[in-house]
């Protein structure tokens, strides 16, 4: 009797798996043509272009870097263009880095990254969790406002920063806007480093 019971459960489980697969296929088909608040899978393409200007106002070094002095402001702008078809949410992370020259390595724990400043557009870009979120969904073929147009190296950069190397890393992440929260700050599913495609 026990064996018969187990056989019956196995049969029902197999039937359930088969039925679930069938139902999932059926739901996907319906999702293409039916809008529902949950479970909508959008079709279309995501492609994005990071539009960044070259640095202006500094002196180019032989290694390709730009030579700057404390108190100097250089021109550099960053924006994003939606070259795909899906409306997108955009967020950007800006990360400055400073590596001191060998002669000043002992002062590494004194590095102050706030000495590198940007004129962020606070009207169109919303700061949350370290990311600047473009306030509007970006439709295909359109571009965001520039996140910043200048980088300023503070006059308070002391002698420990002589000959230092500085990097400004700008990373943009986009995610479909459709059915993804009421606004960009509520969106989820952002690509993590090195990713694109389907998250």
């Amino acid at each position, binding site marked *: 009797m026990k064996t*018969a*019971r187990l056989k*019956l*459960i196995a049969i*029902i*489980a197999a039937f*359930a*798996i088969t*039925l*679930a*697969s069938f*139902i*999932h296929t059926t*739901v996907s088909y319906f999702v293409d043509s039916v809008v529902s608040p*949950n*479970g909508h*899978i*959008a079709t279309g*393409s*995501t*492609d*994005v*272009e*990071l539009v*960044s200007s070259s*640095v202006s106002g*500094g002196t180019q*070094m032989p290694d390709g*870097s*730009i*030579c*700057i*002095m*404390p108190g100097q402001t*250089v021109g550099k702008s960053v924006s994003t263009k939606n070259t*795909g078809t*899906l409306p997108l949410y955009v967020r950007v992370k800006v990360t400055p880095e400073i590596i001191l020259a060998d002669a000043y390595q002992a002062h590494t724990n004194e590095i102050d990254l706030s000495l590198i400043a940007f004129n962020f557009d606070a009207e169109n870009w919303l700061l949350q969790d370290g990311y600047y979120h473009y306030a509007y969904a970006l439709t295909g073929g359109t571009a965001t406002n520039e996140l910043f147009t200048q980088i300023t*190296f503070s006059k308070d950069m002391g002698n420990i920063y*002589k*000959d*230092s*190397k*500085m*990097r*400004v*890393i*700008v*990373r943009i*992440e*986009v*995610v479909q806007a459709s059915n*993804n929260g009421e606004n960009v700050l509520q969106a989820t*599913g952002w*690509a993590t*480093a090195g*990713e*694109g*495609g*389907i*998250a």
Partner: protein
Amino acid sequence: MKLLKWSQWKTAALAFVLLLSIMLTGGTLAYFTDSREDISVFTAGNVYITLTEAEVQADAVGNLVEDPSKDRIEGAELGAEETIKDYGKIYPGQTIYKDPTITNTGDNGAWIAAKVVVSDGRGDIHKLMGYYGVDFIDIEVLLHGGLLDEYIHVGAWNGIQNVCHNDNYAMVQVADRANGVYEFYFFMLKATQKGDEIVLFDTMSIVPEWDNAQMCELVDLKIKVQAFAVQTFGFESCFDAMKGAFATHFEKCVANP
């Protein structure tokens, strides 16, 4: 075949619903995403100078002349232990080669200034080289060559009176006769580039006519030279640069009426 009990049906139904939930849930949270990265690289410039003087050796008559066989003496960084050169006993008519030279050894343009502090030891050098009726001394009684040999005129400069200046440099004196300290501030009016050199003076000479009493005024005389450099970027002039970056060292000069 026996019919399943109600409890067994419940178990099977639960398993079915669970499986269905897993299948549906796994298929609905997919988003299209993309990401891009841009990196800009900067290199901070630098400002470096050296302050050096030649080593000297005695010639046949006892003057101290340049000794080219030895390396130049390099001054220490501001705040570090000072480099002291003792010239020993000096006498009337003697010349001593002394050429404080500032060199821009950095990669970037720099404003350069210097402060030469002449201080009494046990004597009063104002008696030897002081201007009548004022506390200032005429440093060119003692020091010659380099910048000091350039033609200059005396007048107001940046709101400071009695400044010796030309197109190349300006020299401001701050005299504290009571304490026997005379400070000479040299401002180079043109920005220097990598490799540029400035020789403040190159000879110290003792007036031959000074007698014993006058020579006593020179006992323990000290001449201290300091050099300063500030990046050119952000500063319109050497004066502004020194006031901005070395305010403490130049405060007496700025306040000099």
